[in-house]
């Protein structure tokens, strides 16, 4: 039975504990960032950030401010197209772990040509993998496979102070997602789950995905 995340954005306060904890667990160095007129920093996923919180603000139909937070990470698709594309060039460059459903980059990934690596990244419906020029590897969330294999929660989930994130067996997470969705709909009539049939990371959004991030949903 694959594992699944639930990310209930209606409970997220964008504290970015997940973003920083992810870096800490994976021992990723800090980027030299700059203030560019946004709290979203680093501005995008990169080889040293497998997870970032995206910020998006807009005015609703009543002219009220809405500020949405989107902790962005690999969705660990149930049928991962990145694995298919990579396999055509280098079998085993990307694999799907049978037990957890985690989509993982292997050492063989470094043997992908830059063009093939780009093709793999471009194929991602959620714009996730990033190419590391130094190591020639594709980089992205690995579901904390080391922790999960040892029976622990992914670092981001463990860090979340508000209960916005949960992780567990897919069946349980789907049930929890439905329960949370019912609750959220009372306050947010447009609340919905993003692509729940296709991914292992269930995002619960309060309104249309376009108000979060252009790649929040596929299609």
């Amino acid at each position, binding site marked *: 039975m694959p594992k699944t995340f639930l990310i209930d954005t209606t*409970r997220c*306060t*964008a*504290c*970015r*504990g997940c*973003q*920083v904890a992810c*870096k*800490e667990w994976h021992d990723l*160095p*800090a*980027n*030299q*960032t*700059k*203030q*560019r*007129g*946004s*709290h979203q*920093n*680093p501005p995008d996923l990169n080889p040293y950030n497998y997870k970032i919180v995206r910020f998006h*603000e*807009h*005015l609703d139909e009543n002219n*009220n*401010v*809405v*500020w*949405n*937070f989107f902790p962005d990470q690999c969705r660990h698709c149930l049928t991962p197209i990145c694995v298919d594309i990579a396999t055509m060039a280098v079998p085993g460059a990307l694999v799907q772990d049978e037990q957890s459903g985690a989509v993982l980059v292997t050492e063989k990934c470094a043997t992908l040509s830059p063009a093939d690596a780009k093709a793999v990244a471009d194929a991602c419906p959620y714009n996730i993998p990033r190419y590391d020029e130094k190591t020639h590897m594709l980089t992205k969330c690995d579901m904390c496979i080391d922790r999960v294999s040892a029976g622990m929660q992914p670092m981001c989930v463990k860090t979340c*102070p*508000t*209960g916005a994130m949960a992780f567990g067996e897919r069946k349980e997470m789907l049930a929890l997602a439905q329960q949370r969705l019912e*609750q959220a709909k009372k*306050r947010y009539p447009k609340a919905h789950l993003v692509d729940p049939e296709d991914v292992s990371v269930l995002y619960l959004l309060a309104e249309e995905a376009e108000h979060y991030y252009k790649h929040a949903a596929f299609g």
Partner: protein
Amino acid sequence: MTNHWIDIKNSDAILIMGSNAAEHHPVSFKWIMRAKDAGAALMHVDPKFSRTSARCDFHVPIRSGTDIAFLGGMINYIINSESWFKDYVINYTNASFVLAESYGFEDGLFSGYDAATRTYDRSKWAFEWDSQGAPVRDFSLQNPRCVFNVMAKHYSRYTLENVSAITGVSPENLMKVYEIFCATGKPNKAGTILYAIGWTQHTVGVQNIRASALIQLLLGNIGVAGGGINALRGEPNVQGSTDHALLYHALPGYHNLPLAQWQTLGDYQKANTPVTHIANSANWWSNRPKYVTSLLKGWFGDAATPENDFCYGLLPKGEKGADYSYMYAMDRMLEGKMRGGFIFGVNPMNSFPNTNKMRAALDHLDWLVVGELHNSETSDNWRRPQSDPAKQKTEVFLLPSAHRVEKEGTISNSGRWLQWFDKAIEPAGQARNFADMYVPLINKIRELYRTEGGTFPEPLLKLNWTEKYDAGEWARRINGFFCKDTEVNGKVYKRGQLVPSFVNLKEDGSTSSLNWLYTGSWTEEEGNKAKRRDTTQTPMQAKIGLYPNWSWCWPVNRRILYNRASVDMNGKPWNPEKAVIEWKEGKWVGDVPDGPWPPMADKEKGRLPFIMHTDGSAQLFGPGRLDGPFPEHYEPAETPVAKHPFSKQLTSPCYKFHTSKFDAFAQPADPKFPIVLTTYSMTEHWCGGGETRNVPNLLEAEPQLYVEMSHELAKEKGISNGDGVLIESARGAVEAIAMVTIRLRPFTVMGKTVHLIGMPFAYGWTTPNCGDSTNRLTVTAYDPNTTIPETKACCVNIRKIDTLTEIA
């Protein structure tokens, strides 16, 4: 907090005001979200739409520095709409107390004002006394001079129109908050107010909180589950440091600093021990002499005897009216009246207002000792930008200090829980915790006194001191010991054994305790209660998330303060579904009650619930504050307006300020500085950032100083998102990156457009290219009660600049 973190989940309405809880106390939102799940209304009233606002039902923008107007309007609404909880107000507050003729209020000034000293003669704010010396009370509230009616008249000026005009909040938004929050004035409903330094850092900081107290008392929200006035405090351990008086005006356990006019312990005790003439008032502070004597025994041990006044004479005495706060210390430094000093656990050269002044003041020291994790703007002040190190005379000693995780001890959380933490790792290099710096230092000084003598060696030589610091030993000293064999309830405690409760502390010198509030935290029977992690609870306690066996809470493990006000005169909970305590079969069940006495219905043994007040009643009329018995709106020391609707008194008549050449102020409605600046912190950096700027992964997330502003202001000033800008006040100029956002909007104040901008204060020059102290802009004006600076509101201007020197 009167209540505690978990208890927030019991609220029906949560008003977050003067706080950005989601960003600065992230864990609070765990419990706020639980309340929301259960249907609670969540409101954020704040100048800026923040991450807190994003999770609330709605956000109400308010011009910084106008909270009392907003809250005064709510008080007026409560009275006019009769939303107040009558049984509670009449029985448990001083609403019925009749005011003496000497009390008056006219055009913004209370009676007794002396303009020359900017102080009040508070004896004018008195009650009428009966022949026994007790206040005259009119429980029918018919007397026009009873507190309730005087209060109603006071706030009748706070109409929607007036409040809206000065706060910049629309009448619709005012009504929305008033109606939702005041719906908790019913016995089965509770509303909580969460605040932080957004309320305290004003020239009317104390009165902001007083205003919330009036509201919560009128609605019957104090003492109940899901209610209270909850100051959110966190990792800086403000709760613990306040309890233990890391302060200049108090001794540990909330006792006044001894003054020169109290030369003997008898003088001190007499002046500081209140007497009540109300028969059913517990007047808990009548016990103060027991706590003060035990404190002296804790400090001086066997050297403290009845014959020598328990060494009271060795304590330093303050002068009446003198201000020993940090702000005044910096002023004295500037005047060359201080030669050296120790600065630990604070980075004033970044976090204090008018930082240019502070930095110049520090130059006057001959020597400075700083205890820090990293080099800071304070330790390295001598080599700051535009300073010539060759001309600096200050010799600086930087003592590397241990990080929180490199030491063991206790922290008192916001809910007053005492929690023990263990040392995770050894301090790196030569780093030590503060106590391991101080203890050997004091021992060295003691040795010098012993061998070489000196002026007045007794205060140090008679100290009940230690050779080597041990956290557990000091936690036990705080709890306190018996100084001679003593029998308590049939059990004999030997000299040197721990005192089980503060009710066992004595005035005769037979007990010691470094803080009476913490007596009972470490006992012979149960050991170190700060280590308890037991979730056992009764079904009644489970209903409100009360865990009496998890850690320990002052006082006497009482989790919700003033909980006797959560029950009626017969001891029955106002809200049986969320009962805090209940009188059942002749005893209290639930939380530890505020005192053992039976309910008020017992005319002989019952006691009024507000036991820390001399007269047992909560103070709607509060004559103890220096700047007035009722909160009144005054503009910040720097204001964008020249008048307000409530009186001709534009600013607080009592606020404190300095007059050095650095302490310039903008004029009211100054065209040179038309924009309101408010300052704050953020999740990613901790306070002034001295620690977190040295954590690369946090600096990555918030790398440089920014200024948040509206699209409207940006357009007016020709500023685009991401541009470099210069912000200027009467005191200094600061570079920042413009963050243009819909989360800030212009206000309409007294008919004109007022812009407000916001900046964090977490950046300083020791972190390269990130920007420098925002506080170079803020104002050296202070609340008269606390001397807290008004860093939340001052006046500035802003313009685009092409070349940045502080940010790259």
